[in-house]
């Protein structure tokens, strides 16, 4: 039972890591922007808009990400649209996380007390000003714990995109492992790298949260 790990494998894994981080950053940003829109649609939209947004959220939260990924990558290919694995990954994961983030944003916005908006309006603020200066600053603070969770989740789920050929951290790990028959060593190291990333993100976000914290605005801690 000897363990072998060659140092030359590390830079290769490093290249995969870069792709993993890129994919995570891209899909979480798209998800945030689109998710906020969906949340607004679910909160304030009229019948059709509300219904469409709700159907979207139900679908993307109720079906596996893996299936969504293949639908985007191979489904669109069937219609003549060929996407790179990275792009398919960004789109599929972006659409997926948008549905989850929509619900987190909606919950956070609803958690801001109604009187806050009334007070803002009573000063003569427009609806937009009320949202921008009173509702959003509070809602964003309230959503941070759930959002951090979602970021970590997305980072971990990027590991499935290797199945459509993306040479991310997981994909490169698989390649090296199967070429050298060193499965335990490689996957253990890969696991440690993901773990480290997760810890880094968690602590970074905890720091952010402590900086923007306001006494009296219900944060989970």
């Amino acid at each position, binding site marked *: *039972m000897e363990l072998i790990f060659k140092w030359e494998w590390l830079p290769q894994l490093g290249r995969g890591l870069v792709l993993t981080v890129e994919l995570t950053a891209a899909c979480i940003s798209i998800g945030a922007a689109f998710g906020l829109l969906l949340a607004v649609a679910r909160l304030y939209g009229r019948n059709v808009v509300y219904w469409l947004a709700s159907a979207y959220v*139900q*679908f993307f*939260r*109720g*079906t*596996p*990400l*893996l*299936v*969504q990924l*293949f*639908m985007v990558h*191979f*489904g*669109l*290919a*069937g*219609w003549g649209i060929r996407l790179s694995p990275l792009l398919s990954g960004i789109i599929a994961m972006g659409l997926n996380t948008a549905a*989850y983030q929509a*619900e*987190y944003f909606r*919950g956070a916005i609803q958690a801001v007390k109604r009187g806050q908006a009334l007070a803002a309006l009573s000063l003569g603020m427009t609806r937009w000003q009320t949202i921008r200066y009173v509702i959003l600053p509070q809602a964003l603070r309230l959503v941070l714990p*759930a959002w951090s*969770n*979602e970021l*970590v*989740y997305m980072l*971990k*789920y*990027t*590991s*499935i995109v*290797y*199945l459509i050929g993306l040479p991310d951290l*997981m994909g490169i*790990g*698989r390649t090296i*492992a199967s070429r050298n*028959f*060193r*499965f*335990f060593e490689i*996957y*253990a190291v*890969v*696991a440690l790298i*993901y*773990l480290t990333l*997760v*810890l880094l993100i968690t602590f970074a976000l905890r720091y952010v949260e402590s900086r923007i914290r306001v006494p009296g605005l219900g944060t989970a801690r």
Partner: protein
Amino acid sequence: MTAVDWQNLVQGVPSLLSGLLINLEILFGLIALGFAVGILIALVQVYSPRPLAALAVGYEWFFRGVPEMVLLMLIYFGLRQFQVRITPFVAAVIALGLRSSAYQSQIFRGAIQAVGRRQMMAALSVGMTRLQAIRHVVLPQALRLSIPPWSNEFSSVLKDTTLASAIGVIEVFKKARFIMGRNYALALPIFLVVALFFLFLTYAGNWALGALERRYRIPGFEAKGAGERF
């Protein structure tokens, strides 16, 4: 899509359904494992002395920080490297089950703490041992409180069973890939069908858990669900 395509699609459905059965088997296996280990870890974290509780925290961190895919590979291929041969199915149940145990332990821990130390003290004061108190007073309440967040975990792992295809389990997703491989025009439709299967199972599961919650509800003792992925 041509008429032949539609025919192929419809013919593929039974195959998909038999694959779906495998997903359900993985689901029940991993949930059972996750439940048993999860409760254990939660109890250790709440009631054990510091060093042991710290181990439990470490366990949680590990299984919440490592992606499911990596866990699957680690357990299936990693163990094989050490001459421990298990079927992909068993590896999937173990990997996904242990991962779920980390999330479930957090749910149970939260619920146990929500029940509160006072219930434990009251139980001890009438002469129960700690174990009896846990079994007859704390857990019954904690389990009820756990149902809403637990149904989130249920939805989550239901969808994760598709990941087992990556280590070779022939479940519904793998079957869909086979069908797609034979006829690429079927790609979108076949995955849509699989998606709808899961949508149905998700609703069915949530409905069942909702019924469970209503059946065991204690008036005046409720907690709000979160809707988070955990």
